[in-house]
């Protein structure tokens, strides 16, 4: 699977967010997008998901434009934005079940898959807590727990490390690396380089 971003540019509200961006995402790539606030990291990620329109240029998955339904983009991506996409009045367990229902690669018939995801991120003890009662870090862990259960190939993660403690960052890193070993692609954005002691990382530095 290969994603080509060809001369992509995006304009919002008469401001040029990014211009003439060219990247190739290949299998087993781990990408890290860094840059100052407002340089367009979130916009780029949303454009990759297909929910942000490009002003010019195109994004191709396996040579098919992602806006074309034939590209079957959504079957291959999982997007976790920097808003956690959790429903406040549901418990952690219910949230995970609901969110995983939108991911056809999660084997929901396996009753334990959600439980294992919660154990991995150490939030099992919160499984019956309302999400609105959790701390921001635990909310982030809940939202990232979907990645454990998912078998999607392309992970698009916007600021995944926000609010996480050191132990959780380690857990997340291990997840990314094992995803890479399985041939998956991940692209994350962050304010600082949390992958600096890992090898084979591809970087994209964006500027204003």
């Amino acid at each position, binding site marked *: 699977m290969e994603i080509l971003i060809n001369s992509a540019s995006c304009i*919002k*509200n*008469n401001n040029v967010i990014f211009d003439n961006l060219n990247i190739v995402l290949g299998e087993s790539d781990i990408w890290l997008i860094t840059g100052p606030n407002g340089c367009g990291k979130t916009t780029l990620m949303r454009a990759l998901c297909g929910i942000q329109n490009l*002003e*010019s240029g195109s994004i191709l998955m396996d040579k098919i434009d992602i806006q074309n339904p034939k590209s079957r983009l959504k079957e291959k991506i999982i997007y976790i934005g920097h808003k956690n996409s959790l429903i406040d009045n549901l418990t952690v367990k219910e949230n995970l079940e609901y969110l995983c229902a939108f991911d056809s690669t999660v084997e929901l018939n396996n009753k334990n898959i959600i439980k294992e995801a919660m154990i991995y991120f150490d939030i099992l003890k919160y499984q019956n807590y309302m999400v609105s009662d959790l701390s921001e870090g635990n909310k982030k862990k809940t939202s990232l727990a979907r990645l454990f259960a998912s078998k999607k190939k392309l992970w698009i993660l916007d600021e995944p490390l926000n609010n996480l403690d050191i132990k959780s960052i380690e857990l997340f890193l291990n997840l990314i690396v094992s995803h890479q070993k399985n041939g998956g692609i991940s692209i994350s954005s962050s304010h600082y380089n949390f992958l600096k002691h890992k090898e084979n990382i591809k970087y994209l530095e964006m500027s204003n």
Partner: protein
Amino acid sequence: MNISKIANLKFFYTNTNTLTVYLSLFTFLLFVIGIYWGLFIAPEDYLQGNSYRIIYFHVPAAWLSLQTYIIMAVTGFIALVWKIKIMEIASIQCAPLGALFTLIALITGMLWGKPTWGTYWVWDARLTSELILLFLYIGVMVLYSSISDKRQAAKLTSILAIIGLINIPIIHYSVEWWNTLHQGPTVTKFEKPSAHITMLIPLLYMFVVFNIYFLTVLIKRIRLGIYIREKNSKWMKEYHDV
């Protein structure tokens, strides 16, 4: 692709400058002729005397208010499907214009009602439909002004305009039906006069004049829309410096 879309706007803007001047003069002249024709040349009505003459403003304004909505919805549709920028601008600029026509139709209708029927307003099918049309226009304008990203605003108002267009016949039919239910068999007061040809021709003439007015104002407003959208771009600054 990108260049040709901007060139559309630039082409339109730079080439319509003198056109709008001539069109404005032409429209003004046509209006003067029309007003003279309607006020003095057309014959007196058998029943209503001279007070019927206001239909020369009322009826074309009403026709044009509906026509503008259709144009607004159609240009909005083109803007959504083919993503042509100038159609986005044209679509939203139709809205205040259409609201103006609707307002003229309503106010002239009220002024006609007073001498003919004795009251300013009556809830008959035509006036009520016009009022609802005014609310539809206001909805579009208010939605557009509430959204800060103007291109997103243009798309959402296009959707609203298209849905509104589908609803207009339904609303019109239901209001007429409601009116016949409650009115009974009395003759509606604001029937178009049954056509003596010397009264009908100025009416059609005024319809054409209103259309030309619509065209003039729309072109000017599209220029304004282009200016607002492109005022920080290079070609606009160069154009205004020269």
